[in-house]
């Protein structure tokens, strides 16, 4: 992965090193920014926790960013009353009840949960993003065979 360098030129000799650092590497950084996604697993995962806990190690994302904004996206089809949130470097981003919440109504078997979140002005360096959940019912389950995705990507 290449690093971003502040592209400021002054009256100076244009050298290979400068072109590679300020032009080539910056273009490559813009073309291929820091990104992480969940790996593919086949399982049912459940919780009975009524306070926010990590969903599963599968839902940990690690980014080394250049300093700027990051998009975080999640979708799944949970079975049961749910609330989802995520932590950035151990700090949860939503309210006391998270970012999104849903309830099973009579006759419903599965719900949809999703969010696309913009984190602004993260400092350059390593960051850990972890999906969290809790239930306000008896049991919350996600069938990972039924479609899910959690990803984060530096966008500036």
């Amino acid at each position: 992965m290449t690093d971003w360098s502040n592209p400021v030129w002054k009256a100076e000799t244009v050298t290979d090193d400068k072109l590679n650092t300020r032009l080539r590497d910056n273009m490559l950084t813009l073309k291929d920014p820091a990104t992480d996604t969940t790996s593919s697993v086949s399982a049912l995962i459940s919780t009975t926790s009524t306070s926010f806990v990590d969903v599963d190690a599968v839902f940990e994302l690690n980014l080394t960013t250049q300093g700027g904004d990051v998009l975080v996206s999640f979708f799944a089809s949970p079975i049961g009353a749910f609330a989802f949130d995520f932590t950035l470097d151990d700090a949860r981003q939503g309210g006391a009840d998270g970012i999104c919440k849903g309830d099973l109504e009579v006759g419903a078997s599965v719900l949809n949960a999703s969010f696309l979140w913009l984190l602004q002005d993260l400092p350059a360096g390593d960051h850990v993003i972890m999906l969290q959940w809790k239930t306000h019912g008896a049991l919350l389950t996600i069938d990972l065979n039924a479609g899910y995705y959690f990803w984060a990507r530096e966008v500036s």
Partner: protein
Amino acid sequence: MAWQTPQTWSNELVTATKLNREIGANQQALKDPPSDNYEPNEGSNYSRAIASYADVDSSNLSFSLTTMGGGVMLCFVGSILANGQGLLDVSVDGTRILNSATEGLIAVGTGALPRSICFSYLVEGLSAGAHTFILQWKPSTSLTMYAGAGTANYDLHGQFWAREVS
């Protein structure tokens, strides 16, 4: 920093001024495009009980971006309780995307319990300059959007954001 259409180079002296203008400034513009976001954490939840479109929050869920010309991505995530099916839309420079009194970008189903709503939308081909983006809604009977107001079991922080992406 504003984007400038890169020049076509031809048999000319490459100066620091040109490199900064043609490459440095444009790289900075791509690296840090116009963007804004808001996560409601209000004293009370948003509500509306008049069956016509209106701004959800004209101060906070409303952005003005000065863009470089191109596409802007919009996104909303939140939890809404609907009495009668409601609609959400976004006004772009004063005109709703689905510019019809009976249509919206997404519907919120009626029910006894709140629904988790999330949508994203790409507005394409905007001219360079200032543009406003305002989240709007229309109830059938009433809509309540949970806004981090400490409502028991519904202290939720959603997000509305807009960002130039090209």
